[in-house]
């Protein structure tokens, strides 16, 4: 039923995951059956694959503008986030026990912080304003002599709001505090240069940039020791044990190479399409709110609230029409439905339940946007017509 047979499928959920790029898959294939060795082995089978790992390390390093030795391969973005936070807390426990982060981080950071809080670490969750922006002065004033880490995401996964990472890097350097950035959503969509940004740790995830699921990387600046999360073998210079996911790492390298090649034009192609979707919806559907509209945003992300209806119901209608998008709110029994990001932005709880996120990809075309603009107004009206919260409201339709 879902994504029905005869409707064209349109995928606008690229912040959730992306398809593996054909070039990436091609590059990975030899590393399953032919070059299958364990890169740690000294014999021919191992030495066949270790150069491939180092090549991939170089490709990731080039995208981030760092040394290859500063790249640690991980299994996902969540691992990088856990590693950066827990590893820092352990290694710097003599120096202090205070972390500064934001209220809108991904759960991989927020839940890790809550876990560390239970272990006695002090966490400051910086608020954001109505547009999702941070107060840099407040960040700086939150630093104490016991602060060991500032953890701020490059771009928010729900709203696409981009934080002033370069300015935060300056503040962190000035106070000699380690700076970790979750760049899972920014890599491949914005230039991410760890030297310009002066970050010390930075996480990324393969499946958001056309590599497969199950591979990621953490940049660890030289001179910033980190206690391993996974103990065992001597892989990754003893920073991360576990036999390498060779095909995945090779794929991540190619995806980073491609992202680098395309950075000059792919984001520039997505942004006008996103603008077209945004202005089209604002024109066709009354009483909608674009979240983070006046903040700097990723070129591919559009997060909106549709007053009077519930986001999940809208998503299912879109799904039936072949359009895949996502909703920050979920109606589950143990959940209040409102996303923590919109809550931190002060969005009214009822309005917050109507949020939908469209996230474009490098393959998104104008026809996809046209189709969304064709489908959304009708289903929103249908849901509003049956909503007790829409009663008595005129359905003004701007022309």
């Amino acid at each position, binding site marked *: 039923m879902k994504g029905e047979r005869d409707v064209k499928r349109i995928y606008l959920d690229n912040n959730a995951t992306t398809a593996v790029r054909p070039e990436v898959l091609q590059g990975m294939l030899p590393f399953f059956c032919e070059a299958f060795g364990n890169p740690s082995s000294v014999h021919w089978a191992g030495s066949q694959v270790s150069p491939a790992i180092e090549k991939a390390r170089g490709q990731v390093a080039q995208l981030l503008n760092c040394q290859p030795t500063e790249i640690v391969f991980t299994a996902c973005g969540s691992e990088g986030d856990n590693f950066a936070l827990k590893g820092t807390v352990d290694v710097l426990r003599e120096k202090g026990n205070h972390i500064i982060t934001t209220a809108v981080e991904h759960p991989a950071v927020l839940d890790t912080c809550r876990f560390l809080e239970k272990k006695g670490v002090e966490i400051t969750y910086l608020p954001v304003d109505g547009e999702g922006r941070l107060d840099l002065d407040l960040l700086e004033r939150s630093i104490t002599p016991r602060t060991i880490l500032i953890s701020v995401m490059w771009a928010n996964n729900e709203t696409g709001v981009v934080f002033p990472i370069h300015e935060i890097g300056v503040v962190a350097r000035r106070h000699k505090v380690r700076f970790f950035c979750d760049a899972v959503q920014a890599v491949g969509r914005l230039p991410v240069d760890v030297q310009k940004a002066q970050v010390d740790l930075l996480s990324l995830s393969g499946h958001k940039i056309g590599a497969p699921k199950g591979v990621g990387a953490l940049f660890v600046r030289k001179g910033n020791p980190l206690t391993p999360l996974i103990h065992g073998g001597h892989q990754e210079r003893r920073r991360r044990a576990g036999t390498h996911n060779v095909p995945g790492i090779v794929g991540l390298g190619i995806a980073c190479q491609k992202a680098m090649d395309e950075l000059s034009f792919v984001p520039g192609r997505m942004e006008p399409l996103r603008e077209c979707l945004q202005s089209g919806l604002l024109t066709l559907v009354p009483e909608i709110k674009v979240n983070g509209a006046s903040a700097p945003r990723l070129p591919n992300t559009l997060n909106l609230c549709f007053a009077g209806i519930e986001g999940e119901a809208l998503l299912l209608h879109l799904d039936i029409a072949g359009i895949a998008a996502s909703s920050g709110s979920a109606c589950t029994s143990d959940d209040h439905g409102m996303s923590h990001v919109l809550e931190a932005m002060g969005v009214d709880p009822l309005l917050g339940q109507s949020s939908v996120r469209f996230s474009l990809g490098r393959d998104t075309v104008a026809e996809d946007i046209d189709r969304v603009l064709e489908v959304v107004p009708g289903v929103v009206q249908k849901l509003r017509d049956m909503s*007790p919260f829409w009663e008595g409201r005129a359905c003004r339709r701007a022309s």
Partner: protein
Amino acid sequence: MYSEKVLDHFTNPRNVGEMTNADATGEFGSSHCGDTIKVFLKVEDNVIQDIKFKTFGCAAAIASSSIMTEMVRGKTLEDGLQLTNDMVAEALDGLPPEKMHCSCLAADGLHKAIQNYLNGQK
């Protein structure tokens, strides 16, 4: 995730809308997720002659509301009061476990409207 029945009632809800000359209305909002239903009743000789609803909520909430109206239309008020969320969920060929609370909405909204009707009669 959802049964064909849920998708049918979600995409094509029965008895949706308002009633200007209702004998009673009942509104119920879930404290869990904010899903809210408004039920309109037309009652004659202790029988639910007509019923309409408006619902804000997820697909499970909308489908539950819709099928609930079909289940009690033409039935007595006592039958209506005996309707449970399990009966609603069952009529929909089941709901995912995390969506069971959405089916309460329909039964609770109906009970509220019937209660309001009976209180008004006194």
